[in-house]
Every structure is written in C-alpha cells, then in structure tokens.
C-alpha cells in the first residue's frame, strides 16, 4: 500500500501549483483552472485520509466539493463569457475598476 505521505505530498504540490497559478497568471480562464486544481488537491487529501482512516466521511465530502465545483465552474465560466463580451479581453489586469 502506498504510504499516506505520498498522497499528501502530491496534494501539497498540486495545491501550491494552484496558488502560484492564481497569483501569477493573468488569463482568467487559467486562473479558473488553477482554482479547480486547488479544489482537486483538497479532494485528493480527503480521499487519502478516508482510505487511511477507514472512514467514509471524507469520500462524502469529495462529492460535495465536486458538486460545488461544478456549480462554481458554471457560474465562473458564465462570468468569463460575460466579461469577454463586454471588454473583448479575459486579461484580469484590464479588469481593475473595482478600486478607489
């Protein structure tokens, strides 16, 4: 059996990749995908612990997160499309009017 820390390290790498992607990329769709990556790293952690501890609660959480992520993807992509229709860009540096 693969030890638990393998999963956790993979999950951490995925999460940090997601965070770095969110912070550094300028394309809204890529940022969006990075967020999905972070969510899935969390899912991986849940599943790993669930199997390790023999407790199904973690797997149930994964389904919730997947459902929320699906809803979020629908809304998020809708926002991106609306943004593009209005500004002809998905570069978030051009979308900074919410400030002083």
């Amino acid at each position, binding site marked *: 059996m693969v030890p638990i820390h393998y999963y956790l390290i993979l999950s951490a790498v995925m999460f940090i990749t997601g*965070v770095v992607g969110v912070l*550094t990329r300028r394309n809204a769709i890529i940022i969006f995908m990075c967020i999905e990556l972070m969510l899935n790293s969390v899912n991986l952690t849940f599943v790993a612990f669930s199997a390790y501890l023999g407790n199904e609660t973690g797997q149930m959480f994964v389904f919730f997160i997947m459902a929320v992520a699906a809803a979020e993807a629908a809304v998020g992509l809708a926002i991106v499309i609306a943004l593009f229709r209005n500004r002809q860009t998905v570069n978030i540096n051009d979308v900074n009017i919410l*400030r002083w």
Partner: protein
Amino acid sequence: MHQYVGLIVLFPLIGLLINGLLGWKIKNEKVIGSIGSGAVGLSFALAVAIFIDMLGAAPEQRSHVVELFTWIAAGSFKVSAAYQVDQLSVLMTLVVTGVGFLIHVYSIGYMHGDRSFARFFTYLNLFIFAMLNLVLADNYVLMFLGWEGVGLCSYLLIGFWYQKKFEGVTITWTGDAGNKAFWVNRIGDFAFMLGMFLIFKEFGTLTFNEVMGQADTMAVGNSTVFWITLLLFIGATGKSAQIPLFIWLPDAMAGPTPVSALIHAATMVTAGVYMVARNSALYALAPDTMMVVAIVGAVTAIMAASIGIAQNDIKKVLAYSTVSQLGYMFLALGVGAFTAGIFHVMTHAFFKACLFLGSGSVIHAMHEEQDIRHMGGLKKVMPYTYWTFLISSFAIAGFPPLSGFFSKDEILWKSFADGSPILWFIGAAAALMTAFYMFRMVTLTFEGKPRWADDKHPHESPPSMTIPLIALAALAVVGGFVGVPAVLGGGNAIHQWLHPVFAQAEKTMALPEHHAHTTEYILMAISVAIGVTGWWVGRRMFLKDPNADERIAAKTGFLYRLLARKYFVDEAYDAAVVRPVVKTSDSFLFRFFDVRIIDGIVNGAGALAGWTSRTLRVIQTGVVQNYAALIVVGLVIVLGLIIL
C-alpha cells in the same frame, strides 16, 4: 385636614393645564379668568380650612409631614414629594393663595383685551403652583423645584409683552429685563445649590426635620454651618433682591402690573426670607452669617429707599420700595427676630400688593403713562384707587394702627434691642425716606392740579380691579392686629403662633428677655414721629410745587443725580461684570476656544480620517490577484502562528 394639603398644590396645576392646553380654544376671557382665579380660590379655601383645623389642635400637634410619593430614590439617597404643614408654611400658603387670588381677580380686568389672555393666566397659575411647592416643601430639593419654578415664571411674566420696548441701562426690550432677572437669579441659585450640596455632605439628608434635628446637637460657630448658611443666604439675595443681586428687581417692572404685585412684591421675592426663616435653626448656629444678613438687610433697606426718593416712574418707586422693605425683613432675620421678619412678609404682601395694583389701576387709567410728573389730580376721577392707595401708603409709612406700623416697629425694636443701635438708626433713616417717597408719589399722582395731556381721559377702573384693591387695603388696615406687641397690651398672636417653629433657633441664640419697656415706648414714639415727618414733608413739598424735584436737583447737584441714576450700580455692574464677561466670551471663549479648540478637534478628527484613508487606499488596487496574494500571506501567518 392636613392630609389634603396635596390638593392645595393640585388646584393651580389643574388650572394651568386647562388654560395652557385649551385656552386658545376657549377664547372667552370670563371663562379663562374664572378657571385661573377659581383654582387659586379653591386652594385658598382649603388653606383656610387647614388653618382653622390647626387652630383647634394643641400647638405641639400642629406640625405634620404629608408624603405624596417618592420622587427620587438612588441608593441611600431618597427625596420625597412631601409637604410640611406647620405654622410657618400654612401662614405663607395663606398669604400666597389669598393675595394671589385677589391679584388673579384683578388681572381679569387689567388684562382685558390682551391677545395672550390665556397665556397670562397659565403663567400665573404656574407661578402659584411653584410658589406653593416652595413654601410647603419638606425638603431642600422640592423647595428648589419651587425656587426655580418661580424664577422661571418671573422670567416668563417679565417678558410677557415681549414686543414692547423697555427703557433701562443697557436694556431695550422687556425680554432683556426678563433675561436680566433670570441671569442674576441664576447666580443666587448656584449658591443655593452649593449650600444644598454642603448640607447633604454634612448631614447626609436633605429633609428639613432631619437636618434641624441634627443641628440641635451642634455647637454654635461650626464653620461648615457658616458656609451652608452663607451660601443659602447668597441664594436668598438673588431671589429676594438684596445687595449685591438686587439689580434685577427694578427692571422686572417691565412685566404687567399684576405680575409686579404678585411676584415682584407680595410673594416670590419673599421666598428668600421664608427660606432663611425655615432654616432658622441653622442660622442660629452661625452668628457670623446672622451678622452678614443683618448688615446686608439694613444697607439694602437704606440704599433702595434713598433711590426711591428720586424716581419718577410710579412702578420704579414701588420697586425700590420693595427692595427696601425686603431689606427690613432680612434685618429682622439677621438680628434673630424671625417672627418679625415673617410678620413683615405678611403685612408687606398686603399693602405692597395693594400699592402695585393701585399703580396698575392708575397706569390703566392714564393709558400706559407711568411718569408721576405727568399725573396729578387723579383723586377725584378715581376715588377707590386713591383711597386704597392712600391707606396702603400710610401702612407702609408705619402710621399706627395700620399693619405696617406693627411689623416695622417690631423690626426696628428688635434691631435695637438684639442687634445694635447702628442697625436701628439705619432702619429708622430708611423709614423716614420711605414715608417721604411714598407721600411724594401719592401727592404727585393724586393731588394738586392735573398735569396730563388733554387727550387723556382717566376713569375709575372696573369692579374686578377695585374690589381686590379694597380687600387688600382692608387687610393692610387690620393685618397688623395679629402682631400687637405686649407693651401695647396685645397678645402678639403671630408670635405665639410661630413660636414652635422658631423655638429651636431661639433656644440656640438664647437672646436676653427685655423687660424695660421704657426704651420700647421711646423707640415706638420715634417711629411714629418719623412716619408723620415723612408724610408731612413729602406732602407739603410736592403739594406746593409739583416740580420741587427740579429745585432739589439744582441745589444738590451730583447727590441728586447719584440717587436718580441709582448710584450708578447698573453702570458699575455693566463695566465690572457684564462687559468683561461678554468680551471674554467673544474674544476668548468664542473666537479662540470654540473656533480653534473645539472646532479644531472636530475638524481634526475628520481630517485625520481623510489622511489615513488617502494613505491606506493605495492597497486597494482593484487587481484581484493582489487581494488573493494578501489572503495567502494572511493564511501563511495564521498557519505559522498555529504551528509555532
């Protein structure tokens, strides 16, 4: 009967509520006047019933405290709305409601046609309500409520005709005179409050009976009691127009004449005398304060009387006369003759109310003319006013057997016997001046040839005005018989009646008994001689030549101007107090403190918030990733703290 004392206070309250809330709708002067007068009349009837009931009880069972409800309760501190019914308060209640009732009736005639008729009666009822609280209260706090209440009514009624001009030093409107009265009284009230605080600190209670009970065991000359009594007395100098706070009373004549009669002669201004008498047991413990009271009283008496000689406004003469008579009352209190002081309060209420109402009748007849140089010969056209005015003038001048003779003579005798011959001499000199200026005024107003303009048609006043005049004149005649001294074969009933109230003070002071009657007879003869001289000189001088003032003024020069201009007291106060205060308020408090400091703090708070925001808003970039980066930083810090 005494348990119904609350109703005495309640009737004027009901009257003022009806007239105050519905008066504008009632409009009918007769109805409004009847409600106002009727309320006070009912109080008077009830006061008489309580008085008769008390007469039937043994002297030691005449004092009661009637508690209505707890007014203030905070920890161990408790103040009740409680009324003390005893010989002193019932006497004051009788005077306040009795004289008050007559003046209410008089006002129906005097205020006829005034556009604020209902407002006038509302204020008058409010005044009676406050005054009754003042005299009936069983503790200092309730007394202070009445004390402030009468001051408020005084202000409201002085400025009653607020659209009218009023000539005075630095005063142009009646409202200014009202303000002046209010402010000067405020100084006295402040001292009164300080006195009250000191009493609470020293005695731990503010109820008269408990304070007097504790005072019974205190030593004479206690320094705290000295300050308490002195502060209370400063309060009294404000309300009762004594030096140094007497300056408001002459200007208070800006109000309608019934107000001058009720508030500024008969009742409110005697509140200070009543208050000192109520605290007689404390004053007896402070001989130094007593001396101050006596001296202030005597000096006020002679100073005001001398000013009265040179005044030409009929109400101003009476106003200074009132200040002077109040001085007598304080002289009496100061030498420990509390009964004589209260006796003079009573007789003075009768004859001075009559004089003021008489002057109101004259002013009414002369179409608002107040200058006695433009009167004369009114004797024939207004006989009722003339005769009542004359009788009251004889009373104030101390002609036996009118009321003023007995009360004033007792004061002079006590100031000689228990005070000093100097006090007596000042009092006697003031009495001479009193008789002189009174008969100067009577002669100039009613006798000789008419000096008024042809377009004036004086007439006698309506019965609603003359009947109160007659009633008050009758009281001025017989009022003194309750205090006929023993040397004249009288029982001095008022002394017997009030004795239990002042017994504690008299025991503390331990004044010697006077058995040698010869001195008393001699002094009495001198008083009578003084009164007759004043009358004779005043009448002769001004009957022969109505312009005698001008001759005297030409002869005495500066001295006359000094009196006519009231010793320049108003000017002195203006220069020494009013203008510095105004200047400090304007240039320091307003232009520096308010504009720079207060406004500076407020504006500074706004400016600080603006500056902070301008500085901090640079972190609001509008770039989502910056916010996300901050969230990550925060997360790392929090996690780091948890782990470490």
